[in-house]
């Protein structure tokens, strides 16, 4: 064999500085990539905020004018004067908070039962529950409307809250999380004389905080953004929520973008604040339950 031996191979001397430079280049590439992703994600928000200060002509300009010629603060009072937004805010908070608390409560109970308890037909019931997710919401809209009108819940908070106190998706999400908790916890709790209900609230729930917060946050967002159901179930201004108010700036012939964006900025503020305070738990919850 005439090939070079290991000893004879040319020495490739890669110094420490080479690896440091390579790591830095890789990190730089990653940061550029993340910054680009960040810019893409933030661009609509940037457009929303700057458009909320534009004149009507500037808001309609195509390609978009990114920075307003003059910053028109008046858009905010003008937009908020178009509808009773104060009341809409109260309703959005009231409905979202109560729906969230209610859903989290029912979801924890159901998810625990499906994850950790043994009962006849559990698998079948769970499949049945998941099956309901396949029914398009639009199909249920009119039957639900008729039911609630007959219950005399039309144009009342009950109609906006009670039908949304249970969520199959939430049950599924929490069940997956609860299943990952070791059964030994329950065994030792039982030995100490703990009963199921107490075990659930003192052991399982604290251990599942990230997942529960995810369920709560998703619910809050969904409830905050709910539009069609609120519009369907209410007639009075005093019962309506923020998303209904936002539609008032659009028609089939055009949209008053500058006013819509001003109202939208105000509308998303509470959600942004909520997210800033809970983002750690939210991301943990999403990562642990594998929900994207």
């Amino acid at each position: 064999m005439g090939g070079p031996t290991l000893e004879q191979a040319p020495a490739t001397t890669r110094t420490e500085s080479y690896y440091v430079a390579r790591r830095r280049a890789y990190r730089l590439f990653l940061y550029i990539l993340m910054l680009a992703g960040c810019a893409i994600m933030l661009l609509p928000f940037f457009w929303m905020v700057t458009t909320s200060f534009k004149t009507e002509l500037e808001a309609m300009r195509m390609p978009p004018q990114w920075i307003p010629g003059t910053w028109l603060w008046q858009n905010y009072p003008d937009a908020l004067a178009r509808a009773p937004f104060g009341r809409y805010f109260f309703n959005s908070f009231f409905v979202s908070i109560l729906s969230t608390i209610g859903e989290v409560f029912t979801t924890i109970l159901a998810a625990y039962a499906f994850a950790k308890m043994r009962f006849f037909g559990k698998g079948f019931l769970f499949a049945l529950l998941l099956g309901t997710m396949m029914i398009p919401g639009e199909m249920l809209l009119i039957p639900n409307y008729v039911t609630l009108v007959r219950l005399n819940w039309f144009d009342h908070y009950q109609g906006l809250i009670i039908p949304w106190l249970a969520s199959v998706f939430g049950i599924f999400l929490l069940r997956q999380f609860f299943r990952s908790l070791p059964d030994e916890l329950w065994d030792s709790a039982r030995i100490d004389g703990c009963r199921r209900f107490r075990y659930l609230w003192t052991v399982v729930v604290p251990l599942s905080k990230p997942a529960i917060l995810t369920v709560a946050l998703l619910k809050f967002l969904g409830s905050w953004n709910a539009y069609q159901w609120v519009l369907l179930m209410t007639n009075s201004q005093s019962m309506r929520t923020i998303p209904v108010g936002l539609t008032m700036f659009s028609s089939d012939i055009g949209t008053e973008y500058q006013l819509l964006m001003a109202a939208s900025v105000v509308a998303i503020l509470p959600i942004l604040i909520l997210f800033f305070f809970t983002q750690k738990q939210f991301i943990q919850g999403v990562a642990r339950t594998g929900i994207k």
Partner: protein
Amino acid sequence: MLRRMMWVGLAALVVFGMATIAQEPVTIEFWHAMSSGHQPNLQKLVDDFVAEYPYITVTLVYQGGYGTLQGKVDAAVVAGNLPAIAQVYENWVTPIESILYPIGNFMTDEEKADILDGLVASNTYNGVLTTVPFNKSIMVLYYNKSLVATPPTTWAEFYEMAKALTVDLDGDGKIDRYGTAFRPAANPEQFLIFLEQAGGSILNADWTEVTLNNDAGQAAAQFVGSLIPYSYVTSEYMSDHIKDAAMFVDTSAGIGYNVKAATNAGFELGVATLPAGPANYNSMIQGTNLAVFDTPNLTQAQKDAAVLLARFLLRAENTVFWAEKSGYQPVTKSAYNTEEWLDYVSSHDYQVPMSEQMLNAFAQILHPNYGDMRNVLSTGFEEIMRSVVPPLEGLENMAAEIEALLE
């Protein structure tokens, strides 16, 4: 003498009693889909009405866009909680015509005769004027005045101009500005206009046969097909694409947005009546009507009050006020002759072709399945304009699907 006094007293009692009954307070809901820009004007009309009929309270209830209003009306039909009066498109109420309270039966002949001819048929069920027009607009031709000196008056001129105005301005091999533009998915009425102008219609007069694909339909489809290379196709507002086409057909109600978009783009926008086809230059009426419902949840007094409101809104001064403030068109003949409207037209020259077009117009048919037919036209017209299918094949497909809806 005593007997006479008794009769007078009795008559006074009857008159007093009737007056008391007539003035019994009544509250009605008016469901609408007018965005917040229009709401103060609608509220003003309602306030004027209430000032004239102080015993009636009208609650304006905003129900989102037209889609959500339709959903709500549909749901309320099932649940039995319809309002006394609502804005409706023809195809929403044709399937539920039996629960409409015929407004025309409570109008004078003079009032009925005053409604624009093009609007009567689309509000008449079984020979009775049942609903009445409210916020109506008309499709007209918008054009870029810096590119189009004289707007086209015939299909042939329209075609030639669309072809000449389709250009690749920077020489990169891509067209930068088209001669015309269409929103087929959102506005299949653009195709129905060509069909009407060719002398055609979707169905025959007694709705027993599909006529969409007859000679007139084929002429319309072929004309549309000839425009494909010179047409910008979008599903968005035309005002968002004002620079992409030199001329386009759009609703008169969009004038405000279109003019602002043109100003932004640096040109002046012109408005003209539509170019004429082989049969006529008719355009299609857009917008909603007012329906009063006749359901058990409503009292006779509520239905009467709703009829009064509908009649009030038809008065010349009110339909003119609404038109001036909203950009919709007046709906009665007398309105077009009022001093107020003539003054308005003299200072808004685009209203001249719009008014002319309003008098040369047609409306949608009142077939109960028109909503589904419109969906077929929407998809079919989109497929033709995006060259998914050849125009005549697309026409045949639409005709076959509409045929199935007749069965």
